[in-house]
């Protein structure tokens, strides 16, 4: 009997939770704020769904109710992607080791 593809996705999901669990425990506590901003940025990969939604109209009607919501979601996710990665970059650039003593 064939296995429903949903089971495969569920497996990926469960295993990723475990990967996330171990990876996040290894994050040093001093970087917990950058961790939050970067998880914010990567969860905006939801933009792929927004792009599909935005391009769902046909050539005559680019804008229908469904695609408008898609375009709005694209803009929101894009704020997060650019904002999240850049602010993380900015924060991480500030973490320096002791070198110029005195």
């Amino acid at each position, binding site marked *: 009997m064939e296995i429903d593809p949903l089971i495969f996705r569920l497996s990926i999901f469960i295993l990723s939770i475990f990967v996330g669990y171990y990876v996040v425990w290894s994050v040093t506590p001093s970087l917990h704020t950058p961790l939050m901003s970067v998880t914010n940025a*990567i969860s905006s990969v939801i933009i792929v769904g927004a792009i599909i939604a935005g391009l769902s109209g046909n050539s005559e009607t680019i804008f229908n109710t469904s695609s408008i*919501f898609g375009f709005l979601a694209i803009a929101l996710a894009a704020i997060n992607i650019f904002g999240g990665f850049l602010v993380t970059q900015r924060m991480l650039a500030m973490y320096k080791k002791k070198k110029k003593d005195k």
Partner: protein
Amino acid sequence: MISSNLSAIFYLVSGVLFILALRGLSSPETSRQGNLFGILGMIIAITVTFLSIGNFSSGFIFVLIFILVGGSIGAFIAYKIPMTAMPELVAGFHSLVGLAAVFVAISAFLNPEAFNLGVSGNIKLGSLIEMSIGAAVGAITFSGSVIAFLKLQGIMSGSPITFKGQHPLNAIILLSIIVLIYFLCSTQSTNLFWFLLATSFLIGFLLIIPIGGADMPVVISMLNSYSGWAAAGIGFTLENTALIITGALVGSSGAILSYIMCKGMNRSFFNVILGGFGATENTSGSSTKEQKPVKSGNADDAAFLMKNASSVIIVPGYGMAVAQAQHALREMVDTLKKNDIKVSYAIHPVAGRMPGHMNVLLAEANVPYDEVFELEEINNDFANADVAFVIGANDVTNPVAKTDPQSPIYGMPVLDVEKCKSVLFVKRSLSPGYAGIDNDLFYKENTLMLFADAKKMTEDITKNL
């Protein structure tokens, strides 16, 4: 147009790159590289999506326009935002992820053909369940984060808002969401879908209003987790591996952070979520203790004490962020170091308004991260240190947590500040902290209270050194 198998592999690659992005954060040296992995993963995911749709019609131009508009807003915010406002920023960003998830779900519900989920009015059952869970969690994330944002920004009072019957009401609404999802799946009614969204927005709002300001580290972590689960829900609907992996990563990351924050306060997750902490105890303890003598001093006294010390431990808290005192503090420490005084920083897990808040502020003020220590690393050193300089922290130093089983913060891990030879406590007044209880440390023989604004006091001490 590329085949769906190929694009699935690319989505997997971008999921792996996201894992590496988080992995990089295990140390500051590897973290910058990790962030680049994250960016690369995002570029791959977006490019593959364009290629797999293969529709480069005029709609494509609009997609680019919206990405550019959103991207420039995001980039602008990222460069302008002061580091002290990081908790607000993260809360704001969470709300956007939540809202984006809701919009994608709406779009998929209205036009399931585009997503290959069946036809309108007859969406595949599995997809509909996944989509409604994603939409509901996204809506909760959105309205919850908006409230968290307003509280952090000070637009809304940080004190808990409670009313009679709050918990039963929330329980009923949560139950009705489950019932709504059930009926939505059996009837495919558009009206029920809107109703589900409205109810979810409402519960997100109601869940966060009873939680007070200093519990925000837990709330932000929890909303971080929710935004992940919402993304995963949408990922299942779209059958997209990158989204499922990312959702699971973010979901567990936020859950772990909430756990760490709760442990830092020795409170259960439910105790925090049910809220109302610190709102009721204000009246009890304070009246009896007001008579006790307090030694207060000025910047001159503090400078004298520190000049004669050989080691100083700094304990920063939320008050330092409010007063923007981190740069002044670092200048003071520079002066101390010139006098060959050993200085280190002690950070309590729940200091500030989000996980790692103090570390970022100190990093911004150019404090090297190897001088900054976590509670467990440094707690034994207080006994050997000459001066503890408490700036803007309160409850996390209260020895009552170790001695008085009646206290609401009993059992909470605290910094053993009182073991230092002398304690300098910068604070504006003797008023109790968030937990609403008096700090015994104020009345100790070896404590010198410095009543002033944290930034001004630190600058004055530097002048006197």
